[in-house]
C-alpha cells in the first residue's frame, strides 16, 4: 500500500471523532485536499471490495471506520446488555430539533402538544442537542440545535442528508 494511504488509514483509525479532509491536509503537508479526497475514495472502495467486517464511512463531515451494518447481531452479543435507546418522546423531540433548528422549546411544546422539558434535557445530556444561543425576543428564550455527535450517531454526512419528508416540505410551504 502507498505510504500516504497507510498514514491516512492509521489517522482515521486513531481519531476519536470522524477525521476531516482538512485535518488530514494539516497533518500531511504537500498534499492537496483533492488528492486526499481521491485517496480516501480509493481506501473506501478497497474496504468495500474486501468484504471484511469493517468499512470506511463518511459521517459528521469526516471519515470513520465502522462495523458492517449486517453484522450487528454478532456485535450485540459482544456488547450484551447495552444499547441505550431513545424513547419515542426523545426521538420526536430530536426530529423537531433536527428539522427545524435553530428553534426554541416553546415551538417543540406547541408541535408535540406536551411539555418537552424532560426529553430536551435528556438529549442535552446525551450531547445530541446543544444550546446554540438565545433568541432576541422578550424573555430571551434559549435556542437549540443538533450537535456533531448527532450526525455521528445517526450516520449522517451532514444535515442536508436528512431525508426530506414530503409532508414536512408541504407544511413549510404553507407556513410561508
Amino acid at each position, binding site marked *: 500500500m502507498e505510504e500516504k494511504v497507510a498514514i491516512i488509514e492509521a489517522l482515521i483509525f486513531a481519531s476519536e471523532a470522524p477525521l476531516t479532509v482538512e485535518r488530514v491536509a494539516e497533518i500531511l503537508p504537500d498534499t492537496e485536499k483533492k488528492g486526499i479526497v481521491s485517496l480516501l475514495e480509493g481506501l473506501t472502495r478497497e474496504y468495500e471490495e474486501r468484504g471484511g467486517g469493517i468499512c470506511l464511512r463518511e459521517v459528521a463531515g469526516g471519515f470513520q471506520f465502522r462495523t458492517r451494518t449486517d453484522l450487528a447481531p454478532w456485535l450485540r452479543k459482544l456488547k450484551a446488555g447495552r444499547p441505550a435507546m431513545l424513547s419515542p418522546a426523545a426521538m420526536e423531540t430530536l426530529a423537531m430539533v433536527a428539522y427545524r433548528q435553530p428553534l426554541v422549546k416553546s415551538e417543540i411544546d406547541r408541535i408535540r402538544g*406536551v411539555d418537552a422539558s424532560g426529553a430536551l434535557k435528556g438529549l442535552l445530556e446525551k450531547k445530541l442537542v446543544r444550546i446554540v444561543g438565545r433568541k432576541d425576543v422578550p424573555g430571551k428564550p434559549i435556542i437549540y440545535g443538533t450537535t456533531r455527535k448527532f450526525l455521528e450517531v445517526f450516520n449522517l454526512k451532514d444535515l442536508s442528508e436528512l431525508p426530506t419528508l414530503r409532508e414536512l416540505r408541504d407544511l413549510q410551504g404553507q407556513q410561508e
Partner: protein
Amino acid sequence: MSYEIKLDVFEGPLDLLLYLIRKNEIDIYNIPIALITEQYFSYLEMMRSLNLDLAGEYLVLASTLIHIKSKLLLPPAEGEGEEEEGEDPRAELVQQLLEYQAFKEAALRLDDRPLLERDVFKRGAPVEEPTTAEETDDALVEVDVFELVTAFRRIIAGLDLKEDLQIDAEKMSLTDRINEIMERLTEEGQITFADLLGDRTDRRRIIYTFLAILELMKLRMVRAYQSGSFGAIRLFPAVEG
C-alpha cells in the same frame, strides 16, 4: 367501545387524537368532530377511572375539541354570506395534527437509520497515546454551555445558599460591565464615568455602569474620586498591576 390498547403508549394528546383518526379511518382534513370528541372523552374518562395521572395537556386539547364542536354548531354569524364561508374552526387543529404527524414520521425515519452503538460500532478500544505529545496551551476547547451550568448546579447543590439561586441575566449584565470597566482601567490606568458611557447613553447602560462601579468599590477593586461637587468622577484601580 373496547379499550384493549395500552394507555401509556400515547406520547400526548395529539398522539391519542391521531390514533383515533387512524382507528376510525377518518380523513384528517375532514374530521367528524362530534364523533372524535366523544371517543376522546371516553379515553380520558377511562384514564381517570384507572387512576392514571392525566397530564394537563390532555385537558387542554379536550377543551379545544369542545370549543370547535360548539363553533360548528353555531349558525353562521350575521353578515357572513352563504357563499363566503368563515374559516373552518377545525383548520388550526388539522394543521397542528399534520405537523405533529410529519415529525412523528421523521422520528421513525431517524430511528430506521443505522444507529451507532445499535447497528454499527466504532473502534471500541482506546488508542494508546503516543506519550510525548505536547499539549499546546492555546488548544481548542470543546465544551458546551449546558455542561457549564450543570457543573455550577452540581457544586452549589450541596450548599444551602439561597442567593446563589438568584443568578440571572441582570447579574450577568452587571458582570459584563464590571469586566469592561476593569479591562479599560488596566489599559488606560484611570478613567472617568463619562468615558465609560461613551456615546451610548441609554438608561440601562447608565444604570448598569453605575451599579458596576458601586460593586467594584464594594469589592475594593477601584477607588473613585470626584473633583468638586459637580466635577468628573474619576476611577483608579485600587491596587497596581
